[in-house]
């Protein structure tokens, strides 16, 4: 690019930086230690800190390995970068206004972005609306890890062909337009679907079936359709360049998911244990059913298949993990493995889209299955709160499994699909019209590692 424009950019950047620092100045010494912290339970806080670490581990190295292994050699670094850079970008958004927009009080659709601008007022004192025994700041950190991994999941659908700059712009917009509102609606105080916090339509989503997996899965599908297929797909072979990386990633994802789901209990009591168990048995069951299905249909059980089944089982149980018994979780897993197998192997070839790393087939389809099965399987014996918390004209209404709750779940799913689908479509069109989404053919055949980042993964 010509020197003048670059210089222009530089100035812009530095002025931003200065402004930024200035805004900070005020908040630099701000903090919240003064309030009584008697309420903090060290065991609960220990578990939530550990869980936060586990969920970040899901993004890196978990997801970067899982995705990185599935692409071709020439694109592995760019694919890993798609997740890595969000640890920086999303965290920054989260600090400035993201957390506030998701969890501060506001209307049914989003929280007031200014309440916790630069995280002011988020400190030692627990926020009883969310978690009474841990610092509000711990809750904020735990939720941030979810905000990081969700857009990272989408990147699997646009791997090997998107412009890095376009990816960044799209992701930031997507967080603001899709993630933060959806997060508020499901989990934020006063959110439209927040069964435990004054919502109108009580949708059960324990750890992010809608917020994380359906939203990213559906957005991924739209991305795949709008961006179009990789050059040469499906004619040229595009095999995973290193399945070993993908298997390491699978193991780390499974382990990290314990933090993701059991951490969502927001304490270290039995509910955490119960969510931990549901998570594990669903993953196990899904691995079994995917493997058996493939073995029967293709004659051989592939290792990548077993790994894909595990992730499918984990994504599927996510919304249900805190509401169902172990046998129910196992059933959900069995269904997840088989259904996602077909979603991944058949849907794609039928509709000829190139969801390169099967984000939709695994996360989207899986979590839809989980959300809906949850409608029937949610158990008040596992989670008493669902029978006693949600009020309608004075009386508590039980959200335990049944036709009524199934309907609520369905509404939640459809709404999420619509918001994520439309939002993503519009944003992609905007980005495409302005800076363009795809690299040119030269760059694509050279590989994104070289064309976008000037590096190669493997050398002498």
């Amino acid at each position: 690019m010509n020197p003048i424009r670059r210089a222009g950019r530089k100035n812009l950047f530095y002025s931003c930086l200065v402004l930024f620092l200035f805004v900070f100045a005020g908040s630099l010494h701000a903090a919240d230690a003064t309030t009584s912290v008697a309420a903090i339970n060290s065991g609960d806080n220990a578990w939530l800190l550990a869980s936060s670490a586990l969920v970040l581990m899901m993004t890196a190295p978990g997801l970067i390995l899982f995705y990185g292994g599935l692409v071709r050699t020439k694109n592995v670094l760019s694919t890993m970068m798609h997740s890595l850079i969000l640890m920086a970008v999303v965290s920054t958004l989260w600090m400035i206004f993201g957390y506030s927009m998701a969890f501060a009080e506001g209307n049914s659709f989003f929280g007031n972005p200014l309440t916790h601008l630069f995280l002011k007022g988020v400190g030692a004192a627990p926020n009883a609306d969310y978690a009474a025994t841990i610092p509000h700041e711990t809750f904020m950190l735990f939720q941030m890890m979810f905000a990081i991994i969700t857009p990272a999941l989408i990147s699997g659908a646009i791997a090997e062909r998107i412009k890095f700059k376009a990816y960044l712009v799209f992701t930031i917009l997507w967080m603001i337009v899709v993630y933060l509102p959806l997060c508020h609606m499901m989990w934020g105080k006063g959110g439209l679907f927040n069964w435990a916090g004054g919502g109108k339509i009580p949708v059960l989503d324990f750890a992010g079936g809608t917020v994380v997996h359906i939203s990213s899965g559906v957005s991924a599908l739209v991305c795949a359709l709008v961006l179009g297929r990789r050059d040469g797909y499906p004619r040229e072979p595009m095999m995973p360049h290193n399945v070993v990386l993908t298997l390491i990633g699978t193991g780390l994802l499974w382990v990290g998911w314990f933090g993701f789901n059991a951490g969502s209990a927001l304490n270290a009591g039995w509910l955490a244990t119960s969510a931990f168990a549901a998570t594990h048995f669903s993953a196990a069951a899904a691995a079994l059913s995917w493997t058996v299905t493939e073995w029967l249909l293709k004659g051989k059980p592939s290792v990548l298949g077993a790994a894909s089944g595990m992730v499918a089982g984990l994504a599927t149980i996510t919304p249900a993990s805190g509401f169902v018994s172990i046998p129910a979780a196992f059933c959900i897993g069995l269904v997840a493995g088989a259904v996602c197998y077909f979603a991944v192997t058949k849907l794609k070839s039928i509709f000829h889209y190139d969801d390169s790393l099967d984000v939709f087939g695994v996360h989207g389809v899986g979590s839809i299955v989980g959300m809906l099965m949850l409608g029937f399987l949610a158990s008040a014996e596992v989670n008493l709160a669902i029978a006693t918390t949600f009020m309608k004209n004075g009386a508590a209404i039980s959200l335990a499994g049944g036709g009524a709750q199934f309907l609520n779940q369905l509404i939640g799913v459809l709404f999420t699909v619509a918001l994520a689908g439309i939002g993503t479509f519009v944003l992609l069109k905007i980005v495409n019209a302005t800076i363009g989404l795809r690299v040119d053919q030269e760059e694509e055949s050279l590989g994104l590692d070289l064309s976008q980042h000037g590096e190669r993964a493997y050398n002498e």
Partner: protein
Amino acid sequence: MKKIEAIIKPFKLSEVKDALNELGIQGMTVTEVKGFGRQKGHTEIYRGSEYTVDFLPKIKIETILPDSQVKAAVQAIIKAAKTGKIGDGKVFVWTIEEAWRIRTDEQGDSAV
């Protein structure tokens, strides 16, 4: 001086090497190659998409020899590399006009 180029099955390399050593042939250069021929490949499946891989791993052995040794060397290679199964490979021979040993500047037969 002639060059012998043999395409063999990878797991036969050490046997072929030993066979050549027995003839007092000490020098050779080996390359990992992919072969395509009568031998059928295999299919692989990744998440439902099937790929047929018809290039099979082979080993190329090259050795330059004085004309006198060629006949024996070719026989030795064929004997050592044979499994009788399809895909055993080929041996090709052609003339080399000149050879040098970099270390000593020696030229001709004494270079190899």
